[in-house]
């Protein structure tokens, strides 16, 4: 049977049968004999000294095997790691359990280990802790103000790090401007809320000197290295397995206290130990995203040309750094040019410690903030100058011939055609007609809003140290095993990687198995985050398949007694040019390679190859999202009437999966615009500690999304793929906010901070009604 071309085809996922039947194994589904269960006592105070900690009653509770406190294990487990940052970075020691003081609500204080979950939780209630409350600072700007309580006494203030970047001549830009447009923007804290909370299962086998940790993680290989350091174990005695992982969105791109703690407990107790995070713990003690407040100023000419941009931003770090905390806010500065030519940009970033959970990577990780800043500002500029927002955008786009396009922030955008995507979206949504409808409806007291967002994002981390590993192994029977260091958790690379290899080797999808997420099976890897799995991991797999093909060609030439150059490869078979009958299949070659009797001299046996791919540059997906809303000023309610997204992620391997990524991304971006916000009060109490208080988008909240694509391949990698995991989240948020602000134009509204709750909108409309004397009163 001829093999059809699979790359680019809507292939349904090979992951799904086990998942739709409930047969997949997430961490909590793994049942090892003799497993103990761990529960963690968490601080109810945002900032307090632990003056006494009484655990005897808990230890004596039936079923309890051990109780541990921070002070007892401080020297046994190294502090949590952090990466990134510059020379100003301050890293407070972050132990797996608080040692003498707690710094946020949810900070771990003690852990109970018991024979079952219920006993462990019961025993938590028997631990007596006396806290001596300390002054709390939960607002990042207040944390930087003189006289604020200082969270980490090693330093005189709450500055976690600073950075400054000034590119181009900003003073000149502001002097030459016809207008300076200013805006203060709040990027509220968000909770990633993977539907599977975190979970860890750890087992130590003394006889084999082996610690195995199953964790709901996006980065098994990095976790293995960090665990070996924290637990002072040789790295080759640690194995990490990411089994089925129920969503991550960046929240599982980390090394958490519980991962170190469970590893330690398994070693100490010599029995398997399991900890499964509850949802309340998840909102308290799994990283948050965003959390920036910025003042932005843009210098523009009358015709909408942007001359310069200045952004002064405070990033809310939380009480400690998690793994990539210091690396996230700088991404915002890096991407501030958006998809525009801006000759001068200045960024001043101050990161502040607060008595809250840490912020870190959440889907988009620094880029949604940049996109929100520039896309809100472009709309604001259009409004101030009385120009259509489409025109301002087109005016400032780099043209296709200008790629690779260098931004003043130091990036080289690989490839793009921003106007093409914008035009396609305008056509799809029926922009001109919508503007006419808007005008007509306004005269009848109905408020339609049209919001645009033309985004560009940065994907495929590397370059510089962020490679990925892939191996393709053709078994003696001709079946193919693919190993990848990427660690997908819903993205579907067991399917898309198989598509890549199937095309390259001319074999069927069903003959390919993709293995990932086990450090014992896959020798090395980085993991899945930053929309890198396909654009970096997929390329490693592709290169390994190419090498396999080249070796197969050499073997075929040897057996067929032909020159390798004279062989043609088609449908999984090498044959001699012009003699199609004289050929040998890749399966036959695999068998010969393993038998190793008819190989060219000095050729090693077997048919397998590996690759460690590091890209030469990032990739820069882009697109246009347009959101159409109708706002009811009487209730403040927002109706999402239409949503069009035209995305360009380079070459598409599986359109079905790409659509799924875009849909999910848009839902999360919409969630930020409309519903989601992690709220702490001034005492550092978490007010949104359950899914009753933290509002996720539900099925009935969302409109049917209309998707389309343009396809501008990247020159950065041989497949031309850019990555698509975060595009929807990055592109959507400003489109929604721009739409609502546009709808409220007649009320004189120029900005609303997210989430756009009906109450805020209602108040703004009321204020206007009262001010203009048009109110009901």
């Amino acid at each position, binding site marked *: 049977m001829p093999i059809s071309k699979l790359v680019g085809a809507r292939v349904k996922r090979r992951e799904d049968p086990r998942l739709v039947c409930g047969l997949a194994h997430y961490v909590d589904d793994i049942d090892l004999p003799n497993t103990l269960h761990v529960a963690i006592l968490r601080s109810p105070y945002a900032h307090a000294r632990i003056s006494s900690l009484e655990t005897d009653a808990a230890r004596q509770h039936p079923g309890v095997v051990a109780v541990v406190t921070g002070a007892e294990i401080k020297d046994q487990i190294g502090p949590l790691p952090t990466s990134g940052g510059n020379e100003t970075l301050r890293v407070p020691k972050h132990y797996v359990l608080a040692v003498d003081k707690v710094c946020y609500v949810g900070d771990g204080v003690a852990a109970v280990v018991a024979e079952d979950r219920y006993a462990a939780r019961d025993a938590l209630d028997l631990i007596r802790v006396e806290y001596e409350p300390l002054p709390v600072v939960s607002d990042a700007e207040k944390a930087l103000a003189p006289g604020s309580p200082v969270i980490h006494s090693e330093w005189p203030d709450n500055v976690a790090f600073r950075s400054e970047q000034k590119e181009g001549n900003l003073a000149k830009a502001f002097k030459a401007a016809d207008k300076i447009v200013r805006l203060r923007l709040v990027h509220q804290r968000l909770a990633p809320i993977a539907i599977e909370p975190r979970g860890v299962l750890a087992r130590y086998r003394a006889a084999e000197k082996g610690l195995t940790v199953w964790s709901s993680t996006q980065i098994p290989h990095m976790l293995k290295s960090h665990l070996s350091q924290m637990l002072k174990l040789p790295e080759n005695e640690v194995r990490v397995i990411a089994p089925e992982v*129920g969503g991550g969105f960046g929240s599982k791109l980390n090394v958490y206290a519980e991962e170190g703690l469970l590893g330690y407990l398994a070693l100490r107790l010599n029995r398997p130990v399991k900890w499964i995070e509850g949802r309340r713990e998840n909102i308290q003690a799994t990283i948050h995203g965003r959390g920036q407040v910025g003042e932005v100023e843009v210098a523009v000419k009358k015709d909408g040309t942007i001359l310069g941009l200045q952004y002064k931003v405070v990033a809310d770090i939380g009480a400690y750094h998690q793994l990539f905390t210091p690396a996230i806010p700088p991404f915002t500065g890096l991407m501030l040019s958006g998809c525009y030519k801006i000759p001068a940009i200045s960024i001043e970033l101050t990161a502040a410690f607060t008595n809250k959970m840490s912020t870190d990577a959440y889907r988009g990780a620094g880029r949604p903030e940049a996109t929100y800043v520039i896309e809100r500002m472009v709309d604001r500029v259009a409004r101030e100058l009385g120009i259509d927002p489409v025109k301002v955008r087109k005016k400032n786009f780099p043209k296709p011939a200008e790629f690779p396009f260098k931004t003043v922030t130091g990036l080289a955008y690989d490839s793009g055609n921003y106007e093409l995507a914008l035009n396609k979206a305008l056509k799809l949504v029926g922009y001109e007609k919508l503007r006419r409808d808007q005008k007509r409806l306004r005269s009848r007291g109905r408020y339609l809003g049209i919001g645009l967002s033309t985004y560009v994002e940065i994907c495929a981390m590397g370059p510089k140290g962020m490679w990925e590993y892939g191996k393709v192994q053709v078994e003696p029977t001709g079946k193919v095993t693919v190993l990848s260091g990427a660690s997908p958790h819903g993205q579907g690379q067991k399917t898309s990687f198989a598509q890549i290899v199937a095309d390259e080797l001319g074999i069927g999808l069903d003959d390919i198995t993709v293995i990932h997420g086990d450090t014992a099976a896959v020798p090395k890897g980085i993991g899945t985050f930053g929309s890198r799995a396909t654009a970096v991991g997929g390329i490693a797999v592709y290169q390994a398949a190419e090498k396999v093909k080249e070796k197969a060609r050499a073997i075929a030439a040897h057996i067929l007694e032909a020159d390798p150059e004279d062989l043609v490869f088609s449908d999984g078979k090498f044959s001699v040019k012009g003699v199609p009958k004289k050929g040998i299949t890749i399966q036959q070659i695999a068998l010969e390679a393993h038998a190793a009797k008819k190989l060219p001299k000095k050729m090693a046996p077997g048919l397998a190859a590996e690759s460690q791919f590091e890209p030469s540059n990032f990739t820069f997906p882009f697109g246009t999202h347009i959101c159409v809303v109708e706002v009811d000023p009487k209730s403040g309610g927002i109706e999402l009437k239409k949503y069009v997204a035209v995305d360009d992620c380079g070459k598409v391997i599986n359109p*079905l999966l790409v659509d*799924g990524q875009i849909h999910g991304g848009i839902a999360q971006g919409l969630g930020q615009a409309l519903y989601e916000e992690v709220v702490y009060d001034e005492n550092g109490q978490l007010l949104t500690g359950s899914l009753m208080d933290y509002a996720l988008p539900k099925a009935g909240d969302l409109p*049917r999304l209309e998707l389309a694509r343009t396809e501008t391949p990247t020159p950065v990698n041989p497949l031309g793929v850019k990555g698509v995991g975060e595009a929807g989240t990055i592109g959507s948020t400003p489109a929604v906010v721009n739409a609502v602000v546009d709808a409220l134009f007649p009320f004189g509204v120029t900005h609303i901070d997210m989430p756009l709750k009906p109450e805020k909108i209602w108040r703004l409309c009321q204020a206007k009604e009262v001010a203009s004397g048009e109110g009901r009163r």
Partner: protein
Amino acid sequence: MRPKKKVSIRINGVPYVHEVEPRLLLIHYLRDVVGLTGSHIGCETSICGACTVMLNGAAVKSCTVLTVQADGEEVLTIEGMAQGEELHPIQEGFWECHGLQCGYCTPGMILSAYQLLQRQPEPTEEEIRHAIDGNLCRCTGYQHIVDAVQYAAKKMRQKAVGNKQ
């Protein structure tokens, strides 16, 4: 130890008898005692719907049902949906339409869709969205899930017609 209570529950057509703590949640019983780990726990407060199962023909969030409340009753979980190798049309729909990514919410989502299609074999998109409003999915944005349920509805109607003929 607290006194245990004997329960008899038919799960996916198979009778089970166990002695359980009176406070044991149904989801923990299904997962930890019976070993059916297809139903998941996502919030423990009956908001996310990952633990949805059918109890006597009605979808319930099994994280807020006590095992003793299910004594003498019938439970259907995700593991009872396929007939051997043959997927239920809803499962097939989720596969065909890419109605899942990480798969964690999927079993609960499928059971809620099952209840909907029992009650309304020809649901509109709005009815589908309403029916799964108690099931949170963070991956898909729900659109492919709606497509999956529509696919299943069509398939089940065709099957029903086929059975009558």
